[in-house]
């Protein structure tokens, strides 16, 4: 057959005559550029901000021809100090993970549940936005805006206001609300910074951010130890932090508060406190002194297993130290047992009466940088109701701190109390962040779920509509980081690479949905010009900050002290007797409650503590290849001698059972833990078959945790709403 008569020429859109071809075949994607005989790689460094943990270290990305090769810390940043932890170094693993969510998808299988394939179908963004808007509008119409919730990081607060819903959910009641609330009522701020670099004395009550590689804190604690600072750790297991301590006390889990109460007793009764500082900067000292009189070192020794003489000596050393600090972050002794509120109140009081707030080497207030405020073009019409599905409206101080009662949401959805929830937008909140996830799965079956996510994790599997998010390496941000803000600092990031596939940022996604619902005028403006406007407070643009190295310190790098008579507490001072707690009818002083002490474990029973590997952030990094190689699965640590009694060998599978669930997990035998306690690193046991590295590896300690109802929560922690995940005993037996 002659070429001229070939049909496929028509398809190619070209004509052939007399053996020659007329025309050129157009390409859809590739564009002509001047060709280069030899090519030189175009290497540039881009300014970034790590998005893995809340420390948000400033960093630099080495980009070759548009491909991100390596991430490094930015040495201008007081948080990263030029370093990145294993997690930060592994960030590229999520950017380039083939498992990543790439396009909007809908489930075509209506059945939802553990082990159920959603049978996804790729759809266009137009279809995705239309579907989301249509569903949410229908629900709003029929059940009210309050039937729609947002899960995750308060990133949808403006959207919720626009639809009138109070149901703004975050995970903090399983994390750090005890610290936040205690700090709020006593200090008028939600946290303080341990000034490790200059400190002489560190007390840790289960605090292990050194072992979790929280960048600035690990680096500066190492510096403190190098300088010869004393470190005393109370922890049922020999954590990495404890492994560096001069003294380690394997305290009975859930009793740490007794130690601080007794130390307060010693310091006050022996008049070792800084009377001038107390008079000038604190209120309620006499009431505190009265309360702690009953907590003798002998009493504490009985509860905690720490000898009374050591409690007395450590109290004296702490008071005598030139500077001393008790770091507190999250999910340490404080958050997981019901006496935790007393523990944090006691820690703050200890530092306050020894004059260690706003003292070099003590506890510093966060000096967060300011930015120009942005607000929506129009004010939202207001909430339909203040009654929340999670019941947080019944915990006024928690609510003022901006947090939710995370654990109670499952029961509330299942029982449709106080009213039915019908839809949720879930952003950056994995199912494994939820205690007792099986209960949450049942609850989520009742909702229309829009999941904005990067990885195809369990939450994506439960979603009706999956919308692919950009990573922090593909987006720009202006970030005032507060974790270790000894002085105000702002970091700016630019996209290191352009967003891959069809991923879009959360703000773009929400704006598009809101537009279709006719409510986008109520959203906070976003985008590059808004970020520049935020920075214009300093007469700078993002470009300027990047030109200055990505990080600016608008007030210099000198640490300035806060006036401790001008705090945001009602008295303006540190409130040892927290009047805000008293106002709400709560106990304003650190107080021991006997009924919240766990019974002593019988044979085969154990206290449970949980931890996290330094290489993994919670349950979100198990699928990152480089850190997966280091810790592919988790285990339960059991004391060697106890294991011998139970006939459990190292590496053998065991069943760990709590009143709320059970898991099968490998045993790791160790001497570095109390004989009556087991420890499980969190984040494993993923059952999403879409996660090629993480699927089916290890087990989820969350399966052992309760998801307490609002009533149960109010009984146990009416102030901070903590779930008290580890307030239970587990049984361990051979599998």
């Amino acid at each position, binding site marked *: 057959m002659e070429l001229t008569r070939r049909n496929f020429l028509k398809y190619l859109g070209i004509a052939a005559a007399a053996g020659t071809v007329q025309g*050129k075949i157009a390409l859809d994607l*590739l564009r002509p550029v001047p060709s280069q005989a030899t*090519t030189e790689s175009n290497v540039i460094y881009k300014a970034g901000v790590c998005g893995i943990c809340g420390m948000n270290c400033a960093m630099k990305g080495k980009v070759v021809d548009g491909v991100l090769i390596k991430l490094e810390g930015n040495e201008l940043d007081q948080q990263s100090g030029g370093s990145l932890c294993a997690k930060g170094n592994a960030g590229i693993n999520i950017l380039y993970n083939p498992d990543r969510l*790439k396009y909007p*998808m809908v489930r*075509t299988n209506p059945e939802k549940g553990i082990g159920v394939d959603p049978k996804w179908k*790729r759809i266009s963004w137009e279809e995705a936005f239309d579907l989301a808007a249509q569903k949410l509008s229908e629900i709003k119409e029929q059940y009210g805006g309050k039937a729609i919730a947002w899960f995750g990081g308060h990133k949808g607060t403006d959207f919720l206001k626009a639809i009138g819903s109070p149901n703004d959910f975050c995970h903090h009641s399983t994390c750090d609300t005890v610290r936040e609330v205690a700090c709020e009522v006593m200090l008028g701020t939600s946290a303080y910074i341990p000034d490790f670099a200059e400190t002489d004395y560190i007390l840790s009550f289960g605090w292990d951010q050194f072992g979790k590689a929280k960048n600035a804190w690990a680096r500066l604690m190492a510096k403190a130890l190098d300088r010869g600072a004393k470190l005393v750790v109370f922890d049922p297991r020999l954590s990495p932090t404890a492994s560096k301590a001069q003294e380690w006390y394997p305290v009975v889990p859930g009793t740490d508060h007794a130690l601080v109460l007794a130390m307060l007793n010693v310091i006050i009764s022996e008049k070792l406190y800084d009377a001038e500082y107390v008079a000038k900067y604190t209120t309620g000292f006499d009431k505190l002194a009265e309360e702690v009189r009953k907590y003798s070192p002998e009493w504490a020794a009985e509860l905690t297993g720490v000898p009374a003489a050591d409690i007395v000596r450590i109290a004296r050393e702490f008071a005598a130290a030139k500077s001393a600090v008790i770091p507190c972050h999250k999910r340490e002794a404080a958050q997981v047992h019901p006496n935790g509120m007393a523990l944090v109140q006691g820690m703050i009081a200890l530092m306050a009466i020894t004059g260690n707030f706003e003292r070099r080497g003590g506890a510093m207030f966060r000096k967060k940088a300011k930015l120009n405020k942005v607000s929506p073009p129009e004010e939202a019409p207001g909430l339909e109701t203040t009654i929340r599905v999670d019941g947080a409206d019944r915990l006024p101080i928690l609510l003022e701190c901006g947090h939710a009662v995370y654990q109670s949401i499952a029961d509330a959805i299942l029982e449709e109390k106080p009213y039915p929830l019908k839809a949720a937008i879930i952003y950056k909140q994995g199912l494994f962040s939820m205690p007792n996830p099986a209960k949450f799965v049942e609850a989520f079956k009742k909702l229309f779920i829009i999941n904005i996510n990067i990885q195809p994790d369990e939450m994506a599997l439960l979603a009706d509509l999956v919308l692919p998010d950009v990573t922090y390496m593909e987006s720009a941000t202006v970030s005032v980081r507060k974790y270790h803000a000894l002085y105000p600092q702002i970091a700016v990031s630019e996209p290191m690479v352009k967003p891959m596939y069809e991923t879009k940022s959360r703000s773009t996604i929400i704006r598009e949905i809101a537009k279709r619902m006719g409510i986008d005028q109520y959203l906070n403006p976003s985008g590059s010009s808004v970020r520049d406007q935020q920075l214009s407070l300093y007469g700078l643009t993002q470009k300027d900050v990047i030109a200055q190295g990505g990080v600016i310190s608008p007030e210099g790098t000198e640490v300035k002290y806060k006036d401790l008579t001008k705090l945001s507490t009602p008295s303006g001072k540190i409130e040892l007797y927290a009047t805000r707690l008293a106002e709400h009818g709560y106990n304003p002083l650190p107080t021991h409650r006997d009924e919240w002490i766990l019974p002593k474990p019988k044979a085969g029973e154990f206290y449970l503590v949980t931890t996290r590997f330094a290489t993994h952030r919670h349950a979100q990094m198990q699928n990152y290849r480089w850190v997966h190689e280091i810790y592919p699965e988790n285990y339960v640590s059991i004391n060697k001698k106890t294991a011998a009694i139970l006939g459990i060998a190292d590496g053998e599978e065991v069943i760990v059972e709590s009143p709320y669930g059970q898991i099968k997990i490998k045993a790791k035998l160790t001497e570095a833990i109390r004989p009556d306690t087991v420890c499980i690193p969190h984040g494993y046991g993923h059952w999403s078959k*879409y996660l090629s590295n993480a699927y089916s590896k290890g087990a989820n300690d969350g399966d052992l945790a309760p998801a307490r109802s609002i009533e149960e929560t109010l009984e146990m922690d009416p102030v901070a709403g903590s779930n008290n995940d580890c307030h239970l005993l587990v049984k361990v037996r051979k599998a």
Partner: protein
Amino acid sequence: MAAMGEKDLASIALVRRLYEVFRGPDAAGVAELCAGNWVSDVEETLAVLGLARPATWHSLLQQLGTGCHNREQMLEELSVEHTRLFVNAYGGTPAPPYASVYLNDQPMLGGQVTLQVIEWYKRAGVALPPDYPEPPDYLPVELEFVIHLIQSIPEAGTGQAASQLRLVQREFWQDHFRLWIPQFVARTTEESQHPLYTASAEILGAFVQQRAVLV
């Protein structure tokens, strides 16, 4: 200027037809399938190239015969299967359409393989538009690059430009394309539950095997 021969043109047409399949289904694509244009172009180009129709060809024709009665459902089925095979699948995506996944020392996109592909594109005088969202080693992009090389080499004549293009073509095919496509094809044919993807993968495999010897 040397003109493209019949086989070159047939190769381009075939690769473009495969490109349409791997890029993902849409209503226009289904219309082309149901009108018979896709099938007749592929059959004709295979004949010109001396390649056999794949084993699954008959079942594809049958499927189209019945499936085209309900084009909407066919589009739905193709979309779900395309998503499962190439985007995100329960139990692991069988055949991610990115070269780096197969060739990098680390099972990730990006890295050396992507950089190498970018370099070949540069040397061959093409680039992706800055706002194009897929990575440079995405199968549809590489298929277009194959078309670009087939078309531009005769165009470039006999000078230095032409020998550079031929060198790029040889490197791209020998060090890259012929190495990962068979793996991609094997995974696709093994897992595919729709004859359009099985047949297209088989044809791609046969085409690459034949042409790899020539370039």
